[in-house]
């Protein structure tokens, strides 16, 4: 009755029950922390060019290069159960038959903003620093510590994003190959909160309990007509993210 095997079994059983209960409590506690997200997203410039947007593209097609301004305050989304915030901006436009087919949507930019408590991972967003900030002096002794950029502006906290004339990460195409002169397009900010344990949460625009809906974060625009050869190559450069696997997807 009281041999070692029974004791080990009982302890292990109790351990799993307690671990399960604690995990469930942590997952549910997210509902209690209030959220007040706000953002202002504006289109800066959009260009549509014909060419091969990806290295694997077999045919020339029209692709759009969308630059935007973003000023977001999403610090309230970071609770003690938040591992990271996946922020992404999409461009959506109506389909060929809007009454029965929903709009097409494509991501133009994304960023991974980890919580301060998350272990350091190279695949993190590095917030661009303002050009007027003083450069840190190089340490005189030895190699000196490598300066790692933070995912938020200097002096702020995770969730603050201030971008001006930001280049997109992806140039978007339509499945038909034509994206020029499409009307009623919308630029929208979304997020995905990744918890330490529990349910994944996406953008909420409506208020639910203590969680207020997102204020702002939308901009309407229209895709311009196709540009000819007057577009400079420099204008079509895209932003490089922190992804580690830069070759063929594994």
């Amino acid at each position, binding site marked *: 009755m009281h041999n070692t095997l029974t004791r080990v079994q009982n302890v292990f059983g109790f351990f799993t029950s307690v671990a399960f209960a604690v995990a469930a409590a942590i997952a549910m506690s997210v509902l209690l922390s209030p959220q007040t997200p706000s953002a202002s997203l504006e289109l800066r410039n959009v260009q549509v060019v014909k060419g091969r947007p990806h290295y694997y593209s077999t045919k020339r097609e029209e692709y759009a290069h969308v630059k935007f301004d973003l000023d977001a305050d999403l610090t309230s989304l970071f609770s003690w159960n938040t591992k990271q915030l996946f922020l992404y901006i999409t461009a959506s436009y109506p389909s060929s038959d809007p009454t029965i087919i*929903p709009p097409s949507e494509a991501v133009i930019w994304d960023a991974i903003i980890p919580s301060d408590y998350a272990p350091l991972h190279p695949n993190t967003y590095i917030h661009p620093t303002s050009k007027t900030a003083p450069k840190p002096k190089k340490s005189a002794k030895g190699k000196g510590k490598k300066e790692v950029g933070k995912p938020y502006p200097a002096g702020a906290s995770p969730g603050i994003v201030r971008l001006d004339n930001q280049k997109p990460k992806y140039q978007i195409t*339509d499945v038909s190959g034509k994206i020029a002169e499409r009307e009623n397009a919308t630029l929208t900010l979304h997020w995905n909160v990744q918890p330490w344990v529990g349910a994944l949460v996406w953008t909420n625009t409506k208020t639910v309990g203590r969680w207020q809906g997102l204020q702002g974060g939308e901009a309407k625009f229209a895709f311009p007509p196709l540009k000819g050869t007057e577009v400079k190559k420099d204008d079509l450069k895209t932003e490089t993210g922190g992804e580690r696997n830069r070759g063929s997807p594994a």
Partner: protein
Amino acid sequence: MFGSLAALQPRQLAAQILNFALVLSTAFMLWKGLSVFTNSSSPIVVVLSGSMEPAFQRGDLLFLWNRGIETQVGEVVVYNVRGKDIPIVHRVIRRFGGGSAPLSLLTKGDNNAADDTELYAHDQSYLDRSKDVVGSVVGFVPFVGYVTILLSEYPWLKTAMLIFMAASVVLQRE
């Protein structure tokens, strides 16, 4: 230890075997019941690769839900490449169609710079939501699934665990 096994009456031995079979079938029915509830062929998956780091590490357990027909951009889906049986967990970055038309999705891993176009079958440029997608991730528990990765990488562990479990169930009811 085996002396006590030999002392069992045939009826008691039969009862033990039935008990063991009941445990196995209950576990199986719970799994299948969850499959029906979530409408997914595999409602709980283990992350096998590091292509979604730092969100999902190898060994994390993911809970899937397959009843959301209109999968949105930004959702994390688990899909099978046509012709292969390996489930891949990546995020949706583009969608076309939906409603009356079939929904086409393009996916990309958070830790991959390129999207999944090269992972799909040779003549496939997009995923079909109704055919290729196993489910969409709604919940997550870290590390717990690492046991299954160990089991698949060291097959002798599987046999050892089964023998140990069978022995403990049969010998316990004394």
